[in-house]
């Protein structure tokens, strides 16, 4: 009798284990399935193929005189192109790295020294700094000045003073010929 009931309880325990195992597998598969369903929904919000395909802009540099600047649009944001004067180039190259919050040599930021090409959004919170037009305030370092929260950039687009943490970013630039560049 006792052995019988022990046997029976052993058997029902096995049953329960098997049931619990099935529940576990089913739940796990359900979670995987739900995740697999959720992923395309989330991923659909990433940049689409047509947006990625438009990710490069070609610019003709001929009309930009020395000392002038041009703003072009790349990926929906402004890019600053400045045809730097000799003075600006010397000034940018002459700065000691120790003075810079975000240490980067001018030579690492340009392909040709007379052409500075940087992203036109302040690295603080994304405003467009002043300094492109001739009458604009250019900040204490002769580059750009962001009116939103007072960041000053130098003639290499590097942050010198103010809340912005980093230099204006350098986009991927390729010279197709002497006077044409491709951004992106």
């Amino acid at each position, binding site marked *: 009798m006792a052995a019988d009931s022990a046997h029976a309880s052993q058997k029902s325990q096995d049953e329960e284990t098997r049931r619990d195992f*099935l529940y576990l597998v*089913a739940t796990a*598969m*359900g979670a995987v399935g739900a995740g*697999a369903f959720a992923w395309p929904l989330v991923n659909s919000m990433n940049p689409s*193929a*047509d947006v990625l*395909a*438009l990710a490069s802009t070609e610019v003709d540099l001929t*009309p930009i005189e020395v000392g002038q600047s041009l703003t072009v649009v790349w990926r929906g944001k402004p890019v600053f192109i400045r045809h730097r004067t000799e003075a600006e180039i010397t000034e940018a190259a002459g700065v000691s790295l120790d003075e810079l919050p975000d240490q980067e040599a001018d030579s690492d930021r340009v392909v040709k020294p007379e052409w500075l090409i940087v992203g036109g959004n302040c690295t603080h919170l994304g405003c467009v700094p002043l300094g492109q037009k001739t009458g604009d305030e250019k900040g204490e370092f002769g580059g750009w000045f962001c009116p939103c929260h007072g960041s000053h950039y130098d003639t290499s687009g590097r942050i010198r003073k103010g809340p912005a943490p980093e230099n204006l970013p350098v986009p991927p630039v390729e010279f197709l010929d002497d006077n044409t560049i491709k951004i992106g």
Partner: protein
Amino acid sequence: MKKFVLTAAAAAVTLSLGLGTAHAAEAIKAPSKSWSFSGVFGTYDQAQLQRGYQVYKEVCSSCHGMDLIAFRNLADLGYNEDELKALAAEYEVTDGPDDDGEMFDRTARLSDYFPSPFPNAKAAAASNGGAIPPDLSLVAKARVGGPDYLYALLTGYEEDVSADVLQSIYETETHKREVQYAADLEAYSVKKAKYDEAVKTDSSLKEPKMPEDPGPVESVEDLGLPDTSSFNAYFPGYGIAMAAPLADESVEYSDGTPATLSNHAADVSAFMMWAAEPSMDQRKQMGIKVILFLLVFTGILYAAKRKCWSDVH
């Protein structure tokens, strides 16, 4: 209730009279063809798509746009980036305005869409005798029968279609005409009887015209298509504004595939199917995985359900 019974009775009467009315001219159904992408495991044949693109480019594109397709999309056909750039560079697109406010032409880039052959719909209509050549981006999904229909249409012109198909069209149309003629005669006899009665008192009445026997349809001419259209066995109404666009040797293939009408038609139909549904391969692959997953999952759920319910009765 009474109303319904009445309507039903009225319907029965209308039916007995109405069965004779000819239906709108409908073309015969396109036979189904075996494609590389048919069935659950079927995929596009890249070589065929490339040939189809060539046919589109060299023949169709002079009248038909494909404005949803960009050059970058042709990567699906198996071209590498350099080949794609070379393909795009064969086209000019309008861009602008430039700094002077002028529009200008430049060579196409990968992100550009196929240029339209006509600047707008009115221009398209004006150059094609009033018929606007439809855009082909989605045509394979926008026609009943899809690629089967496109293939049948492209090979369905008078010189290309088989005698059997022609014969069956003649028979159907002859039958339709006979039915219509019988109905017309009946209507005439009613009118005539009325006229005969009425003319006794009013001689100014016009005598109704007796309908003419249209005779059997024995040739394409008997169908009475307008001069501006060509006969096509698979086009609704048989008269299509597009003259036969393809023939043997229309396009010279570089991969050794025989340049027959049948190959041209099949290749370009496959290409249009790809253009309409570029994600098909990916969709089917995903479908197989999802269904395998669901089979296992459902099986486990069934086992769990059996276990769970084993003590309920």
